[in-house]
């Protein structure tokens, strides 16, 4: 095993990896940008090296600097966390060439899954179901009809060069097919200068369900069951749970096998996630493989009773997988919510500023993965996620109850956060019933407010005004002069890409 590990990340995941290393008795080395000098990870790590300015490109994405620090500090392995360099095959190669260990899969596996079209072909070859589709430079009327019939209605027409929803048409009936195709081609030509349109099966009422997989360097592969990630806003996950309330034992067995087949097909040798779309008839289709530790890994850890980061380190060091498929089982239910500094009432616009104080939730079955602390400045340089709050219960209802209570207890002073919004999701009838798909947040409405809570809020607001006076700066951070955060308040309509 390693004596010393470098963590090439920041925020809560850097803290998570430090915890795992410490639990194994390893020394930790953190690299940081000037914006993160006082972050929890820098305070916790045994050694800390500043590698540049806040811009990720000049710090957390600068692989050469990071490898140099690993050499200088005597670290034997680099854990990339998620994001930044975690799915960068070139970096994984450079780490290996420097005589160090990349805590993640081999570079070839990252490469194989990095490209959507290649990975689709690889999965098709391995027998993992992919979304049926037919691609041609152009279609004649007859060829198009035939293609759509072969795939089965409803079908999607999608621009090959696509993006941003342009050139996309859903067709339920053959009689609308040709007209939709002509429009789609026209739109694609206009938007991308390329009129190639392909036909794909339309997935109705899609669920985003992913399987945690693990492989080692000795040819062993397992899956650690599913995570339901259908509560999304603009393709960013907000709430994740395991098991999925949509899952059946038969589907789980089938999908688990497909996930392991996918891992085996690319010689996967660390923690990874196979993402699927599942339609309302419970047919599943391969989407992609995330070749890294996933943000939402804690729900799997709680339900399966494993430490995925510790296992990552062991496997990277060459040890055999410590778990066998037959011995893995799901116990109870876990739900995770992502705490972000943002305003759900204003298009999830990120908020920035000083965390003045925090009251952290606790109690049976509660886990908090966080890098948050009073005195921490949240800046615009990085993702607005502050923490992940996870609840475990013997069943789903207990997990929801515990998580709702923990969110009520959680108080972050100084920043606008999505904490009340997350609680509202957990109060939603459809969420409580476990009947939701990826369109959940599009139709989301806040549950009604209890009259006594409303009355108390009105009185509190008037008293707040009375006590604190009319001073607009009251709630400010006390900075004089130019206040960029205030002008940032003018930025409206933030949209996640």
């Amino acid at each position, binding site marked *: 095993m390693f004596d010393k590990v470098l963590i090439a990340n920041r925020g809560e995941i850097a803290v998570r990896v430090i915890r795992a290393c410490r639990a194994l008795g390893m020394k930790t080395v953190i690299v940081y940008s000037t914006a993160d000098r006082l972050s929890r990870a820098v305070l916790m790590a045994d050694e800390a090296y500043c590698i540049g300015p806040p811009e990720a490109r000049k710090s957390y994405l600068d692989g050469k600097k990071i490898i140099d620090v690993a050499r200088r500090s005597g670290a034997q392995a680099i854990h990339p966390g998620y994001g930044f360099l975690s799915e960068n095959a070139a970096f994984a190669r450079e780490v290996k060439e420097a005589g160090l260990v990349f805590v993640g899969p081999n570079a070839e596996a990252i490469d194989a899954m990095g490209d959507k079209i290649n990975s689709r072909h690889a999965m098709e070859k391995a027998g993992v179901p992919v979304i049926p589709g037919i691609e041609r430079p152009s279609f004649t009327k007859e060829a198009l009809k035939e293609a759509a019939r072969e795939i089965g209605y409803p079908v999607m027409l999608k621009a090959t060069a696509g993006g941003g929803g342009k050139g996309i048409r859903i067709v339920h009936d053959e009689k609308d097919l040709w007209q939709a195709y002509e429009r789609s081609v026209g739109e694609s030509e206009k938007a991308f200068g390329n009129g190639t349109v392909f036909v794909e099966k339309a997935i109705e009422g899609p669920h985003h369900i992913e399987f945690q997989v693990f492989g080692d360097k000795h040819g062993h592969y397992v899956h650690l069951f599913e995570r339901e990630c259908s509560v999304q806003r603009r393709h960013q996950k907000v709430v994740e749970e395991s098991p999925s309330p949509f899952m059946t034992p038969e589907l789980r067995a089938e999908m688990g096998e497909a996930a392991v087949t996918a891992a085996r097909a690319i010689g996967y040798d660390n923690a990874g996630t196979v993402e699927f779309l599942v339609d309302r008839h419970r047919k599943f289709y391969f989407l992609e493989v995330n070749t890294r530790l996933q943000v939402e890994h804690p729900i799997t850890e709680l339900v399966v009773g494993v430490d995925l980061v510790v296992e990552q380190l062991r496997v990277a060091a060459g040890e055999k997988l410590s778990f066998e498929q037959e011995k893995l089982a799901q116990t109870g239910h876990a739900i995770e919510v992502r705490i972000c500094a943002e305003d759900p009432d204003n298009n999830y616009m990120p908020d920035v500023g000083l965390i003045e*104080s925090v009251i952290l939730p606790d109690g049976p079955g509660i886990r908090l993965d966080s890098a948050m602390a009073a005195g921490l400045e949240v800046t*615009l340089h990085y*993702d607005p996620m502050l923490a992940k709050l996870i609840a475990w219960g013997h069943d789903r209802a207990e997990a929801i109850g515990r998580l709702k209570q923990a969110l*009520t207890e959680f108080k972050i002073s100084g920043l*606008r956060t999505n904490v009340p919004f997350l609680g509202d999701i957990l109060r939603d009838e459809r969420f409580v019933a476990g009947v939701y798909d990826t369109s959940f947040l599009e139709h989301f409405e806040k549950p009604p407010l209890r009259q006594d809570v409303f009355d108390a809020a009105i*009185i509190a607001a008037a*008293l*707040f005004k*009375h006590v604190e006076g009319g001073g607009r700066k009251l*709630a400010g951070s006390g900075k004089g002069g130019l206040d960029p955060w205030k002008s940032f308040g003018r930025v409206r309509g933030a949209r996640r890409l």
Partner: protein
Amino acid sequence: MKYVVEHEGEEIEIEVHETEDGNYEIVRDGHVLIADFKKIEGSRIYSLVVKNRSFEVLMRQEDDLVDVVSLGRGLRLRVESERERNARLITGAGGSTEGEIVKAVMPGIVVAVNVAEGDVVESQQAICVLEAMKMENEIRSSVTGRVLKVAVAAGQTVNAGDVLVEIGPPDEAV
């Protein structure tokens, strides 16, 4: 003192009087309540006890809006003293007579510029789109006025503090 609390268009009048023992007498629709209201120092958390019901309330002010979080639920309220409200109604609703220099508040790439020099823009009108932090951010004018200068073009990289667009008063000759 009288305050007007507005929530989704509904206006609620609240009268606040300080009592001798450090509490507050609240008058709403002719009903009188005694409220015990204390701040937890070093935080933005207040404790409100009304008729022995205890509420832990987190508050955050931004301009004239107050975010209130209590029992896990969030509310956004506009709170004004009666005097402020009257002053606002007399001078016209929030109309600024000054222009605005719109600056980039974060480094990013200008994705689109929606206005040209000489255009008249309304308050809250989208001026340009800035991509940063994996997000497209629509930058809006906070004033009604005329565009005096467009300092950037689509595709351009900007740093925090760079001027994007200058907006003058609506009547200014260009």
